[in-house]
Each structure stands twice: as C-alpha cells, then as structure tokens.
C-alpha cells in the first residue's frame, strides 16, 4: 500500500511541477530558467556551434556571476524561424550580415545601447558601418571573412590574380566551387566587373554562360568537405572562405589564398539583440566584454578567425598575426562587397543554378 502512495504522490508532484513550469510563462514573468537557477542571472545565447573559446565564456560567467546558456543553430534561416515564432527567449543572437538587414526590416532586433558597449570603438573602421546596417545601431561584427581563390602551389604554378584564372584549361577536373547559389554567381558576376548583388538579366546571362563553360572543369560544388578535398590534393584550385583557407593551410602548407583583383564577397557574423530580450543589459555587457583587447585576442586565437579588434594586436601571438590567410582578408577588406537581400531577383539565380548543376 505504501508503494502505491509513493507512486501516486510522485505522479502528483510531477503533474503540479509540469503545470507550474508550463503555465509560468503565460501568467507571470517567471521563466523556467529563472525558477530553476533562482538568484543567478542568465544569459541565453543563440549562436553557431563552437563559436567561442570555452575559457572566455567561463571567465565572463565568473566576472558577472551569471550563467550562459549557449544554444546552437546551423543556418541563418533556422535562426530567423526561431526568432519569428516567438516563444524562444534569447538575449543575444548571431545573425550573418544579410540576415541583420532582414531582421531589422521585420522589426525583430533591439537597438543597441552604444554607451553600454564602449569597446565597440575598438573595431576596425571599415567594419563599423557595413551596408547591411549602415548606422551600426543593431549589430556589431564578430567574425568576418572573404571568399577568395584557394590553390595548391604544387599544381598551380603562377599565383592566380583574377577569377578568370579558374577558367584555365590546365585545371580541368580539379576546380571546386562553393555549393552556394549567390557565391557562385557572385563570383562570375565579379569576374565580369559587375556587382555580386546584380539582378540585371543581361549581366546574369553573361555570368551564367561563363559558368557553363567552366562547368566541365568543375570537380564538385562543395562547401562541407571542401577543406578535405584540398588537403588531400584532390582539388587544385577553387573558391573558399578565408577562415576555411586558414584551417586548410594548417594541414597542407602548399595551400595559397588570394583575393582576386576584381573584388569579392565579404561576409560577417554579428552580435545582435532580439526584440523582447529578457536580459538586454547582460547581453550588452557580454558584447562589451568580448571586445576587451586581451579577451578578444584569447578568443580569436581559439576560434581561428580574423580578430576585428584593432586594440588586440599586441596580445596576439606572432603565429596568428602572420597567418597568411587571415592577413589577406585584413589587407584586402576594402575589396569586399556585402551580399544584399535581392528580393524576387533570387528566382533567376535559382533557375540558373538548378540548370548549371545539371551540366556535367
């Protein structure tokens, strides 16, 4: 009989607990996390996987006596869906460049209180007013990179300087292009001196016909295993992000990376605060903390991306400062053009992209 009572009591407790937890958000301001963690402040961070040095996160938790809940997403569209659905209460998110402008348009972001983030001024000037957020009111650049030509010096003897070098027949079957519509067409548009945001049919037709002549040389359109293909020397030349090029270089010292003279695509992941964030203040403290010179040096050495913090140079290792791949993206940062949301213009890209991929 006693066992029965215990089971019943347990069940009762469970039901009540579930009801309290479940209805809490609807009726009062308490969230499950604040109930569970009582006094400690909580920062709900929604970001890419493995995007921070764990030590730096731990240091922030210690300094501000808080707990960071670090949840992850795999692409911008997923992030947008979660934020739009509401319900998910994140304090700090990391949208990429074009997603910032989309979210601003949809009124999903809070304005940042710049007086609370004095370290923002440590950021490289060229990245302070990017076209997707011209006033810099909604976002701060966290990581950035550029698409360039990656090549293996063993097989590609002359350093490439132009996108046109990908069309060299000597590299037939050894070319890899990123598996992304805007990347591939943006590259072909740039090759012809157009903007990579072009929606002009004539310009796109030119880009498309160029890509069709390149198609037989292409080994693969690949983003996920592109590094492996270059390390294993299956591919000789192709398009790659500067950050990935830096990783590839670590495993194969014959790898080179250049930003072609026609210019290229630049991207950034940013910090932004979604509308209705519970703990905006702590989120701003976190952003500010991340741009403290010493902290940012430690952080970027870990994640292996460019450090946008100008004041951090003295704290970086020589190895980091001299990394040829990262240096390229710093030196040529003005060569970059941000991708814009081109609205319905994307349908033509999509059609050509599908057609392009059927060519063998």
């Amino acid at each position, binding site marked *: 009989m006693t066992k029965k009572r215990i089971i019943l009591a347990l069940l009762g407790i469970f039901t009540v607990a579930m009801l309290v937890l479940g209805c809490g958000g609807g009726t009062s301001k308490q969230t499950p996390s604040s109930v569970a963690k009582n006094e400690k402040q909580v920062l709900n961070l929604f970001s890419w996987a493995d995007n921070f040095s764990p030590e730096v996160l731990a240091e922030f938790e210690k300094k501000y006596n808080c707990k960071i809940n670090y949840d992850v997403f795999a692409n911008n569209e997923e992030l947008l869906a979660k934020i739009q659905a*509401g319900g998910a209460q994140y304090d700090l998110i990391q949208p990429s460049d074009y997603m910032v402008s989309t979210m601003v348009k949809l009124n999903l972001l809070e304005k940042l209180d710049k007086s609370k983030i004095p370290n923002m001024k440590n950021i490289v000037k060229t990245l302070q007013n990017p076209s997707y957020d011209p006033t810099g009111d909604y976002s701060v650049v966290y990581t950035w990179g550029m698409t360039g030509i990656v090549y293996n010096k063993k097989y590609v003897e002359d350093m490439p300087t132009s996108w046109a070098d990908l069309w060299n027949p000597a590299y037939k079957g050894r070319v890899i292009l990123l598996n992304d519509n805007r990347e591939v067409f943006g590259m072909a548009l740039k090759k012809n001196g157009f903007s990579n945001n072009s929606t002009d049919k004539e310009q796109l037709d030119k880009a498309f016909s160029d890509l069709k002549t390149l198609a037989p040389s292409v080994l693969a359109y690949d983003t996920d295993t592109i*590094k492996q293909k270059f390390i294993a020397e299956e591919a000789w030349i192709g398009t790659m992000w500067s950050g*990935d090029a830096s990783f590839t270089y670590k495993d194969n010292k014959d790898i080179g990376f250049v930003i072609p003279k026609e210019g290229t695509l630049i991207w950034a992941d940013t910090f932004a605060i979604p509308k209705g964030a519970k703990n905006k203040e702590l989120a701003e403290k976190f952003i500010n903390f991340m741009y403290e010179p010493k902290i940012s040096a430690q952080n970027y050495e870990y994640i292996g991306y460019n450090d946008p913090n100008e004041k951090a140079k003295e704290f970086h290792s020589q190895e980091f400062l001299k990394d040829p791949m990262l240096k390229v993206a710093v030196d040529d940062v003005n060569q970059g053009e941000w991708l814009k949301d081109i609205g319905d213009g994307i349908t033509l890209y999509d059609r050509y992209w599908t057609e392009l991929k059927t060519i063998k």
Partner: protein
Amino acid sequence: MKKTWRTSALFAYSLAILAFLYLPLLILTLYSFNTSRINAVWTGFTFNWYISLLHNTRVIEALTNSIIIAAISTFISTVLGTMAALALNRYTYKYKAVINGLLYLPILIPEIVMGLSLLVLFSQTSIPLGKTTLILAHITFCLSFVIITVNARLEGMHKDLEQAASDLYATPWQTFRYITFPLALPGIIAGALIAFTLSIDDFVISFFVAGPNSTTLPLYVYAMVKRGISPEINALSTALMFATISLIIIAQVLQPQHTSTKKGKE
C-alpha cells in the same frame, strides 16, 4: 542441389542488404578512430576524438540535456501509456476502434508536421520554448509507442490468473499489484526503453520546439556539421548509435513473445 544453390543465393542477397544498411555506419565508426582530421585519408588508430569529446563542456551539456529530457519524458509517457493500454485492453466502449486508431495515428503523422504543429501550439499558448516544451513534445510522440508495446503484452496474457486472484478475495488493487503488473512488466519496460531511445534520437520535432538551455545531442551534432565534418562528430555519432542499439536490443529481448504467458524470454 537446386535447393543449396537457392539458399546460398538468398544468403548472399541478405548479406548485400545488410551491407547496404550497415556499411555507412561502419565507415562512420571507423573514421571516428582515425588520427587524421580528414575523412578521406586513414593515418592511424586513436581514441583522441573520444577523449576530446569528454573535455568539451558543450557536448557534456548537450548530453545532460538529452538524458534529463529523455528520462522525464520516458517516465511520464510510460505511466500514461501503461494506464491507457490497460484501459483500452480491459474495457469495451463506444467507437473503440476509432479511439484506438486515433491513439496510434501519431506514429504515422510525419514528424515535421507534428513538430510544426507543436511549435504553433506552444507559441499560441505563449509557453516559453525550452526544456518544458521539449519534454511535452517528447511525451506526445512517445506515448503511442508505449501504448502499442504494453497493449501487445496485455493481449498475450490470459485472464485466468487475474480471475483466480479475484476468486481468492484479492482486491482489485492487489490483483493489479501482484498479478497484472508483474505479468505486464516486460512489456512496460520494453515500452519505456523504446520511448527513451526515441527521445534521445529525436531531431525533427526537437528542432522546432527547442529553446534556451535545451540543445540536445542530435541538435548539437547538426549544428557542428556547419564547421565541417570532423572526427569528433563521427565519435559523437558512434557513441549515440551504440547507446541506441544497446537499448533497442534490451527492448527486443523484453518484447513479449507470441504465446508465452510467462515473463519475457529468460
């Protein structure tokens, strides 16, 4: 002669099917022991990726989340499912077939539809997304599986033992406690194990209803792939796979046999 030819052909065919099913998993497992970061080249045997997983606080956090969510939703769905199965099995009522059908329907509904509908429900009722919503969602889809498993066990049980107990003046509770429950136990445990496995493995539904502080292991693996497929992901997937397989094997062993009225298989 003809017969042996046929059996060997059948045997080869079965092997081919098995290879088709298990080769990808085998390769994944193999590369999780590779010293090189690159999936393309085999350079040597190592446990390093497993060790580095254990030192990764994010992975441990995701694992803890997964286990907490699976444990709670398994417990609740098993209790609710067992009660439902008992009711379905013991009583006759109007529209029984319809109600039975409705209970099994969640198994057939595409996961993505279920995930989306749960997300809409939660945001309509402004329940904040997080562990709570994940647990509620997992209970929802585990329930049907528990009911089916327990029900199968109850169907295979003869009523005579329970009737004998009542004849001997056992109260309904005593009958349940000392006769019905122990007899149904293998089915209940099997149901619980299936629920646990489903919860640990679930990606699609969790993807929709996860919120702050509730990244589960499958969600984490998915987000990690963005950074390129590393041996750590292979190691993590291998670990996840083996945990799942062992749970399923246990559930299989405990699964009620066709005609037996005795406990499980042993």
